[in-house]
């Protein structure tokens, strides 16, 4: 089975990632609705912990700021939904007959920016809540995969730009 073009692996992956992103979007909407009616957090049986409904299953020990907990949870799941949606768009655009196109380059650029968002978010958050030795632990290590994915995407974008240029020249070679 071919990787790009019609009826390719890319077109299957497009559907898979799109479905996942839609499901996550529905979860996000569910959580926002629960948050608005104030039923997103509930106490554990012993009353010592707060559990966020429909979350990743973690139990938080008495957070001093519930809103911060809500924001983080929503950001994570909303971000993941957006991330998967953009991944699905990349696969959709490479499912076309011509792999090298302006559309792919634009989506790859957006994907690169989206990959830097967690790093920038963590950076800004940790600067505003300043404490010692936060950078390597909270900002760099936890977001290293995203930063590397972002940098890799920038390189791939440059390759696609070159590919588009070569393809255009080839199309205009008579």
């Amino acid at each position: 089975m071919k990787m790009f073009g019609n009826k390719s692996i890319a077109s299957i992956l497009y559907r898979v990632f799109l479905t996942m992103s839609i499901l996550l979007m529905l979860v996000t909407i569910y959580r926002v609705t629960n948050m608005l009616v104030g039923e997103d957090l509930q106490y554990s049986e012993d009353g010592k912990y707060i559990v966020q409904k429909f979350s990743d299953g973690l139990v938080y020990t008495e957070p001093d700021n519930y809103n911060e907990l809500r924001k983080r949870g929503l950001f994570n799941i909303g971000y993941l939904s957006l991330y998967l949606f953009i991944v699905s768009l990349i696969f959709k655009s490479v499912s076309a007959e011509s792999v090298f196109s302006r559309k792919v380059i634009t989506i790859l650029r957006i994907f690169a920016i989206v990959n830097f968002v967690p790093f920038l978010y963590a950076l800004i958050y940790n600067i505003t809540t300043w404490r010692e030795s936060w950078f390597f632990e909270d900002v760099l290590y936890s977001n290293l995969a995203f930063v590397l994915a972002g940098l890799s995407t920038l390189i791939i974008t440059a390759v696609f730009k070159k590919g588009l240029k070569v393809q255009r020249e080839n199309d205009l070679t008579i």
Partner: protein
Amino acid sequence: MSIIVNLDVMLAKRKMKSKDLAEIIGITTANLSILKSGKAKAIRFSTLEAICKALDCQPSDILEYIDDE
């Protein structure tokens, strides 16, 4: 661009239509139009050979270099 394609001139000299030339050399009229208008980035030797054969001319009759500066 400093390379000028004089295909129109040769077609007029040979009293041949673009459509007929495209058919003889086996390219589309759209591609021949790109070539005639000077929008082409490059020309294959095989295409040039086919054009020269069809129009009974030399490559220099079709392509001309003009210094822009």
